[in-house]
């Protein structure tokens, strides 16, 4: 499938899971800001979890399918996606074909980053093991930059049964169900000993506001000053994804996908993995509170999020299996099975479409 960019949107970039393995060479990871959304979307259309999709920020692009056909799904934030003017909710796989117009009308619910995932993923060159766009070094993605009007790009080889994914709808119980007012969970350290007790107390009890200086590299937060016990600078060391660093001014900065690999500010805590995506979906002006959890609880939360993805894998597998075996499988997980859908049958070489609905 080949697509053309009619309008680029505010900031639309090609992203996958990121350029891991080169941080020791000073190469930032980049990748999707909301990794759960990227991975879940890829599962829903039958791609590898780490395939490249479009990260759409606040104001989405308008794309036109200029050749071929395939499927698309939008995950992450609801930015009011429509195909030829007809609205489609997030997490529902739709068929798209030559002549179709894909567009977004704007932020509809919570969240600011949507992922538009196509069957086969986006086929741009792999640079240092990844297709992710890293804007600062003009590297990866589409010529190292955000999409612009007139760009064209192609999707890769889709799943052999790609058509069977059409109509798949992921139930809400398999999504993280993030709330805007939920505190973000952090594991303290590696330099929490660089703060006074009062500094730690401030960090964990006060509310911070996301400033206008919030991008793919990091979010600067504003609020009560977090007090250091001594110097705010350390000998430069590695900056993990989701680090909350506190420079001398005492205001936190959350380090996100495009963060530099190393830095010399004290790091009070690191967000637990599932809450990195939760923060990345918030906008300037919105509030942030932090909640301390143990390392073990953070690992458990990360595994829980992983189990949601495994669950989506199972649902999708059921969805695409031929009827005979699928009726058996679905009966065991009734609560999470979709209420309606579509089957494609081939009888003696003739294609048939069967729409179905649960009547219980």
């Amino acid at each position, binding site marked *: 499938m080949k697509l053309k960019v009619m309008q680029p949107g505010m900031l639309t970039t090609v992203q996958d899971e990121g350029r891991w393995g080169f941080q020791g060479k000073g190469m930032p990871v980049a990748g999707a800001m909301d990794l759960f959304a990227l991975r879940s979307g890829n599962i829903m259309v039958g791609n590898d979890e780490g395939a490249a999709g479009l990260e759409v920020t606040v104001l989405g692009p308008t794309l036109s399918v200029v050749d071929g056909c395939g499927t698309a799904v939008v995950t992450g934030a609801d930015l009011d996606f429509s195909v030829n003017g007809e609205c489609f909710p997030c997490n529902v796989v739709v068929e798209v074909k030559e002549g179709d117009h894909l567009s977004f009308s704007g932020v509809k619910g919570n969240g600011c980053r949507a992922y538009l995932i196509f069957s086969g993923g986006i086929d741009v060159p792999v640079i240092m093991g990844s297709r992710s766009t890293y804007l600062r070094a003009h590297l990866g993605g589409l010529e190292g930059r955000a999409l612009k009007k007139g760009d064209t790009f192609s999707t890769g080889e889709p799943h052999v049964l790609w058509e069977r994914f059409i109509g798949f709808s992921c139930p809400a119980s398999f999504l993280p169900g993030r709330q805007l007012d939920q505190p973000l969970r952090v594991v303290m350290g590696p330099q929490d000993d660089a703060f006074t007790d009062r500094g730690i107390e401030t960090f964990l009890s006060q509310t911070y506001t996301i400033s206008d200086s919030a991008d793919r590299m990091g979010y600067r937060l504003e609020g009560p000053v977090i007090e250091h016990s001594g110097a705010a600078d350390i000998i430069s*060391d590695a900056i993990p994804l989701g680090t909350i660093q506190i420079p001398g001014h005492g205001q936190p900065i959350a380090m996100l996908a495009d963060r530099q690999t*190393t830095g010399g500010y004290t790091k009070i805590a690191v967000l637990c993995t599932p809450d990195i995506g939760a923060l990345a979906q918030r906008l300037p002006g919105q509030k942030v509170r932090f909640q301390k959890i143990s390392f073990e609880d953070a690992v458990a939360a990360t595994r829980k999020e992983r189990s949601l993805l495994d669950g989506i894998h199972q649902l999708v597998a059921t969805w695409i299996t031929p009827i005979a075996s699928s009726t058996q499988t679905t009966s065991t997980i009734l609560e999470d099975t979709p209420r309606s859908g579509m089957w494609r049958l081939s009888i003696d070489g003739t294609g048939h479409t069967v729409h179905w609905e649960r009547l219980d």
Partner: protein
Amino acid sequence: MTEQEWPKLLCAGDSCIVVEFGNSISLDVNARVQALRHVLEAKNISGIQELVPTYRSLAVYFDPVKAEPSRFRSLLERLASTTDVGLSSEKGKVIVIPVCYGGEFGPDLQNVVKHTGLAEEEVIKRHSAPDYYCYMLGFTPGFSYLGGMDETIATPRLSEPRERIPAGSVGIAGKQTGIYPIDSPGGWQLIGRTPLPMFDANRESPTLVDAGFWIRFHPISPEEYRSIEEKIFHGNYTLEFHEKGEMPA
């Protein structure tokens, strides 16, 4: 702090453990970082996502779904305290970086001359005399943090940073020296430039220099600069390496 406190394992979220070997920038501490890094690389432990060596610590990124964190932590603890440092930082490779000093390639060489009161030839001589140790890479893709500059040529940064510094530029900022691997903005005093592509995303090994390597600057003329550039373009330039015998004093 006493020596017994090191190494320390620091928790850096649910997917990273930082093994810290000291609180100073020194060859001894960095040698321990490199030693643990090489042991872990050789063991190829499943669940380890990547290793990031810095001045005095090694960040070990892992997948907490695949790796059992408690077992993983005790393994790191054991390896960190038992790994033999050997001679890793005293040996190692020395890469020769040809640099054309002054003129169009080093527009700020005269600033260094003025600041230090040394003759131009003397600045070049002192800059190209030592072997520099690459403690770590960071800041931008391929940027090496080098140690070992002669402090008599230390010069403060420009008061007004440049918007675009060409890749390969060699600069001085205070007591540090470094090479800009990609075109970027910056405020270092530019004293020369190397024709070598320090960073190339499409190369199998994107950076020429790795943490733990030594480098030596070799002064070249503008003609040699052009000739090396030509060779690189035609793919027949061979990097010059030496084996490091002894640690510099």
